[in-house]
């Protein structure tokens, strides 16, 4: 019998793409669908997905929970749980379009929620930690229910199929966001479970990833010390947790986080100026078990920005481009040229070099 995703380790090859308009102007999801479709051969129809930022301006103060349900029973149980922990401002089925190649879809629902103030106070938790723990409880404790997106003013849309089909399935041309990422999956196992598609999200962080990391179990066993549980056993999941731990829990900047995950070689560090040398050496000495080795390139989405990062040997491709206010990140240049034929600037970042594009006015979207 085939095991469900999460019951075995599932590495995969992939395509990724991302776009951000730094002026904050919102774009429909159409561009991402076109961009990822060029890289069709980098996926094998076993997973595709998107993350959009700034797509829920009318509910921007609420956590947008996106859920898969196997059936009405799981939904009823989950709604009871959510009702005990959150005020639900609005809920609805996520509108989809029937696509012949997208089959076996679960029930897909969206809830805009905010923690019940009394419950939150009693929990003695920071609000974001409270939300994370509630989402994890649904995923671990309610069979047939899976929270796959839980950030504010952002949402993840994913499923089993080629990414361009998944995009049309979710009618992403009807959403508008200032930033998008997407992912086409080429898993080397065949689970066919919707929750296993990417992006993987935690609060407003979303990660799309191409690669197969060799440090997986070292990273997993380390990060699980801090309350994370790697239930999906994918690289994307563990990388998301590492970023969440370093940025949200330890207070590192994204640049510093990049120096932990894709640290420069000691020999490279030795050649840097004194200040960089000291800072990067310190980060490697503090978090050696969060160094990620083996091929990967990721695009991290977060409120107000995108970051791309590749492994330090650059074993996976990543191309960046700019055109006016708009910045593009993708596995292949063709995916950028498809939606921006004449960029002002195209470049390939070095291995381990983070590329960060943020809104000129990050406060505007908070």
């Amino acid at each position: 019998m085939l095991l469900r995703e999460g019951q075995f380790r599932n590495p995969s090859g992939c395509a990724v793409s991302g776009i951000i308009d730094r002026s904050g102007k919102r774009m429909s999801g159409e561009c991402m669908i076109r961009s990822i479709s060029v890289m069709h051969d980098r996926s094998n129809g076993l997973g595709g997905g998107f993350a959009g930022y700034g797509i829920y301006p009318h509910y921007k103060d609420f956590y947008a929970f996106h859920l898969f349900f196997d059936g009405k029973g799981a939904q009823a149980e989950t709604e009871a749980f959510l009702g005990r922990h959150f005020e639900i401002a609005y809920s609805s089925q996520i509108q989809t379009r029937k696509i012949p190649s997208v089959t076996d879809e679960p029930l897909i629902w969206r809830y805009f929620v905010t923690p019940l103030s009394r419950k939150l106070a009693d929990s003695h938790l920071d609000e974001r930690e409270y939300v994370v723990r509630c989402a994890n409880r649904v995923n671990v404790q309610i069979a047939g229910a899976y929270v796959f997106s839980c950030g504010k003013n952002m949402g993840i849309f994913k499923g089993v199929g080629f990414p361009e089909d998944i995009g049309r399935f979710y009618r992403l041309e009807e959403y508008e966001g200032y930033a998008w990422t997407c992912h086409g999956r080429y898993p080397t196992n065949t689970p066919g479970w919707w929750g296993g598609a990417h992006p993987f999200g935690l609060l407003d962080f979303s990660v799309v990833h191409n690669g197969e990391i060799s440090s997986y179990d070292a990273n997993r066993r380390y990060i699980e010390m801090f309350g994370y549980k790697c239930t999906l056993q994918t690289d994307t999941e563990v990388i998301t947790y590492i970023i969440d731990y370093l940025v949200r829990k330890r207070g590192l900047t994204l640049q510093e986080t990049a120096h932990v995950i894709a640290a420069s070689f000691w020999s490279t560090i030795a050649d840097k100026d004194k200040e960089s040398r000291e800072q990067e050496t310190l980060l490697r000495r503090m978090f050696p078990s969060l160094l990620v080795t083996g091929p990967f390139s990721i695009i991290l989405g977060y409120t107000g920005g995108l970051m791309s990062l590749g492994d330090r040997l650059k074993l996976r491709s990543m191309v960046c481009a700019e055109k006016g206010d708009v910045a593009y990140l993708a596995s292949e240049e063709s995916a950028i040229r498809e939606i921006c034929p004449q960029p002002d600037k195209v470049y390939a970042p070095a291995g381990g070099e983070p590329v960060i594009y943020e809104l000129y006015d990050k406060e505007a979207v908070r």
Partner: protein
Amino acid sequence: MNLYIQPEYEVVRDESRCIACRVCERQCANLVHSFDAETGKMKSDSTLCVNCHRCVCVCPTHALKIVKSDDTYKVNGNWSNQTINEVYRQANSGGVLLSSMGNPKEYPVFWDKMLINASQVTNPPIDPLREPMETKLWLGKRTAQVKRDKKGKLINTLAPQLELKAPILFSAMSYGSISYNAHESLARAAEELGIYYNTGEGGLHKDFYKYGKNTIVQVASGRFGVYKDYLDAAAAIEIKMGQGAKPGIGGHLPGTKISADVSETRMIPQGIDAISPAPHHDIYSIEDLRQLVYSLKEATDYKKPVIVKIAAVHNCAAIASGIARSGADIIAIDGYRGGTGAAPTRIRDNVGIPIELALAQVDERLREEGIRDEVSIIVGGSIRSSADLVKAIALGADACYIGTAALLALGCHLCRTCHEGKCNWGIATQRPDLVKRLNPDVGYKRLVNLVTAWNHELQEMMGGMGINSVEALRGNRLMLRGIGLTDTELSVLGIKYAGQSM
């Protein structure tokens, strides 16, 4: 009635090759060989032979070999020749049997029941000849706070750590149990390799203070040679609570090995057996250990990491958890195969557990409790090759101690007679005529060669797995698979069986 006991090994001389040059006679401190003037031929007395192979190695015509005797008592599945002989010996002497080096019995070797992964297709192997392959690491606590200065730069709040160019250290072997030249070889090799050697409990010879930055000094229950300058000289201080070869008892150094120089270094009388107490008499519990850890830190101004070394015993995971909360920076765990210069045979062969199992349990326990960052883990006893090293790191070790392998590099042939102090290889002896046989200029180079070779092999295996930093191998148990193991053994080791995929 002093029963004659047939020797276990016999010296065999090929008369057609022997030229009676008498080099074997001059080289054997056990007086096995002699020249018969009447016949003009060499004779040998196998009852004196310890099978150290010195004569075999130095014989210019290769006329000598040592063979296992085929003399036997009536064959008995329960009472082996050795067991019977040991009863005779004890009935003769009334004494405790003494042995040296590690447990030689045929217990399972779990290193040999684990296999290592390699990359194929979905991620690439990395070629260490063409790409950087990092084996450098730091040992110590990693529990620093993220603090920033006014400009927002991170401030270093880490406790002191040890920097190593390879995940290998020479384990504790005291001056006294081994010779001056052996110590000099270890110290110089550690310096050249960018790693550390360990003084053991015998103090630090005054000539070797200059290697302090590559020296770990030991504080053991006998406190031999411990004083302020000794602590100040070192890169790190190790509290020896136990040793894999003899858990539950203290060190043994026979009086015959306590020369004037050893006596001065240890600060004890010459020629009298040095038996350290079984416990530290100021440590009867975990809270007492904490006091010694902080006493040593106070004495050295919090500038050096403190290592606590324990023998691998049944409850080592819980003990390690206690140590990790005691202020120690590093835990060293010594398996039951670990070597010694002298130990009661029954203890060496029957007390303690395999390091593979102890390591797996300690690492897992510290992670379950969320305190793995409080300490680094060094394991030893016994790491025999770079393959053992890779497997130890993948199970969760930060680095490995090597003792027996280092002595082999210096010429040791594992005759397991160190306690007699007549080491023909100049290692486990204090007799000047024997010590001088070990040339430190040669010895240190052989140690450098050994560690360099292992480090190359480590890099090759890491590259094969697609891992280019030893820190991404640490605790990476998915890189290991068991073979020929029971379900219980797999679960204790925390690994899957060969053929089970990711």
